[in-house]
Structure formats: structure tokens, C-alpha cells
């Protein structure tokens, strides 16, 4: 992965350089008009957040089962990125809603459950920072709980009556919008891979530093 990293960075930057041109050329949505263009960053950020929550939960489960510190490092890195991409989704959504719905925020099932998911991963990081020794196992359980919560957030718009569109939007996307959208989604996933690799490296180097400090004390 370390050898592929520079190539991954270059491809990601190139994709994000091309993305605005594709977004501008994509057709306008008939009722919302220009503001619908937020969709091309808003939905991919949630796709990445859900992916990251699954990565974090999976790594947490692996750590609980095997006790491997490498899995714990992946879980920490993924939890931080879940929060980063969730922040993008939670901030771009209200900007879109203000124009489309006439309100910044609505306490409906979709928006509230998404906020709760974000708060679960915020609590994971707080637990890691202030939980002290042994917080790795407890936080792994929190990560697992967060990952299990993802399907509820995803299907909440179908299960309950909400202002948010259902999951039917992506399968029925116009051909003109489909290309730019999936291009942006792929760019976001590549960006996630780049950031996750860098963040895991930081965690690995911290572990090495801790080992060095122990060697100095000995």
C-alpha cells in the first residue's frame, strides 16, 4: 500500500480537478435547479462515512476477537475519518435543505439518526482520548455499535415518513447525472483510501514511538 500511495494521491487529485467540470455540465434538476448540484459532494460524503463506519466496526470486531493491535490502529483511523466525512455531510445537507425545504434542519428520522451516528463516532474518539488504559476494548464495542447503526440510518427514510428523499434516488438517477455522480463517489472513495493510509501510518509511528520510550526507560 505504501508503494501505491503516491500514485493513489496523484489519481485522487486528478479526479477532484476534473470533478467540477463534470458537475457543471450535468443537467439541472427540474424542481430544485442549481442547488441540487450539492448532491455531487453531499451523497458521496455519506457513502464514504458509511464505508468508514463499517471499516471501523470490522476492525473493532477483529481487535476484540484476535487482540491484534494493527486492527485497533485501523479502527482508530477509520473512526476519525467517519467523523470527518460525516461533518461534510452534516454541513452540506442543511445548505441544500435551506433552499429545497425552506429550513436548515428538520428533526426527522433520517437527519436525526445520521446525527446520532456522527455522535457515536465522536464518543468513540473521546473514549480513546480520555478513557485511559483498557479503553481499546470498550471503544471497539462502541465502533461495532456504530457500524450496526448504519443500515438503520440508510433505510430510515424508507421506514419512516421524512422530508429527506428515500434510497430510491440513486437507482433512478438520470443518465446525465449518473456519470458525474459515480465519478465523484469514486473520487471520494479514493480520497478516503489516501487519508486512511496516512492516518494508519500516523498511528503506526505512534506505536513505534511508544516502544522507543519504553526502551529508553529500560
Amino acid at each position: 500500500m505504501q508503494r501505491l500511495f503516491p500514485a493513489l494521491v496523484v489519481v485522487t487529485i486528478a479526479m477532484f480537478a476534473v470533478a467540477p467540470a463534470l458537475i457543471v455540465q450535468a443537467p439541472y434538476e427540474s424542481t430544485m435547479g442549481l442547488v441540487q448540484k450539492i448532491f455531487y459532494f453531499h451523497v458521496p460524503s455519506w457513502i464514504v462515512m458509511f464505508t468508514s463506519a463499517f471499516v471501523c466496526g470490522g476492525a473493532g470486531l477483529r481487535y476484540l476477537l484476535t487482540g491484534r493491535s494493527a486492527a485497533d490502529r485501523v479502527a482508530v483511523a477509520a473512526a476519525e475519518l467517519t467523523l470527518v466525512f460525516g461533518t461534510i455531510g452534516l454541513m452540506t445537507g442543511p445548505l441544500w435543505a435551506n433552499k429545497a425545504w425552506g429550513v436548515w434542519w428538520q428533526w426527522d428520522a433520517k437527519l436525526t439518526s445520521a446525527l446520532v451516528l456522527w455522535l457515536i463516532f465522536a464518543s468513540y474518539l473521546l473514549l480513546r482520548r480520555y478513557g485511559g488504559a483498557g479503553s481499546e476494548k470498550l471503544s471497539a464495542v462502541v465502533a461495532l455499535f456504530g457500524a450496526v447503526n448504519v443500515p438503520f440510518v440508510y433505510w430510515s427514510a424508507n421506514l419512516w415518513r421524512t422530508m429527506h428523499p428515500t434510497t430510491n434516488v440513486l437507482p433512478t438517477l438520470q443518465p446525465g447525472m449518473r456519470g458525474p455522480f459515480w465519478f465523484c463517489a469514486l473520487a471520494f472513495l479514493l480520497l478516503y483510501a489516501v487519508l486512511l493510509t496516512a492516518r494508519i501510518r500516523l498511528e503506526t509511528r505512534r506505536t513505534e514511538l511508544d516502544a522507543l520510550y519504553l526502551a529508553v526507560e529500560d
Partner: protein
Amino acid sequence: MEREKGPAVQLLLLAVLMSASLLAQRPSTEPPIVPARNMPPLSQVPPAGTQPQQLEGFVRADQLPQREQLPAAPLVMTAYAVAWAVVLAYVWSIWRRLNRVEREIADVSRRLSPGARS
């Protein structure tokens, strides 16, 4: 009997004073006359009893008059700026933390090297 007159007169006076003050505060039943501006000429005023034209159905958001629409461009630009600001701030944060850890590793490694111990 003379004793009972005093309070009765006082009550009567109080009632008169309260009535007078209430009358003084009561707003006029006539609406204030305000000079009309941009008023249509009498020939264009619909006759009494006729209703203004009612809307049938909804008006599409993109067909609303300009003053009733929120400008979308600032919202779209803010959304993209926010997304980029969050990503760049995070990249900078990783870079700063990684640099600090690398410096510490170099420092501790120097202390651990055989030359430094002797």
C-alpha cells in the same frame, strides 16, 4: 347615616374618575386616515363583493418571482467550500501530527544510539 355617606361618595368619585380615564384611553373607532400611495384609480378597483383571483394548484419553485426565491449559487459555493475546508484542515492536521511524531522518534532514537549512551 351621616357616617355611611362618606365612603359612598368616595366610591362614587372613584368610579367617575376610572370611567373618565378609560374613556380617555379608548381608541377611536374610526381608522386613521393615511395618505394613499400607489393606489389604483377608482376605475380599476373591482366592484364590492367580487373576490380576488384565486390560485389554482401550486406554482413551481422555478416559476416563482425572483424576490420569492433564495439565491442558490451562494449555498452551492458554500457547500463546496465547506467540504474542501474540512478535508484540507484534516490533511493539515495529519501532516502536523505526523511531523511531530517523526521529530520525537528521531530525538528518542538519538538518545538510544550507542554513541549517545557512552
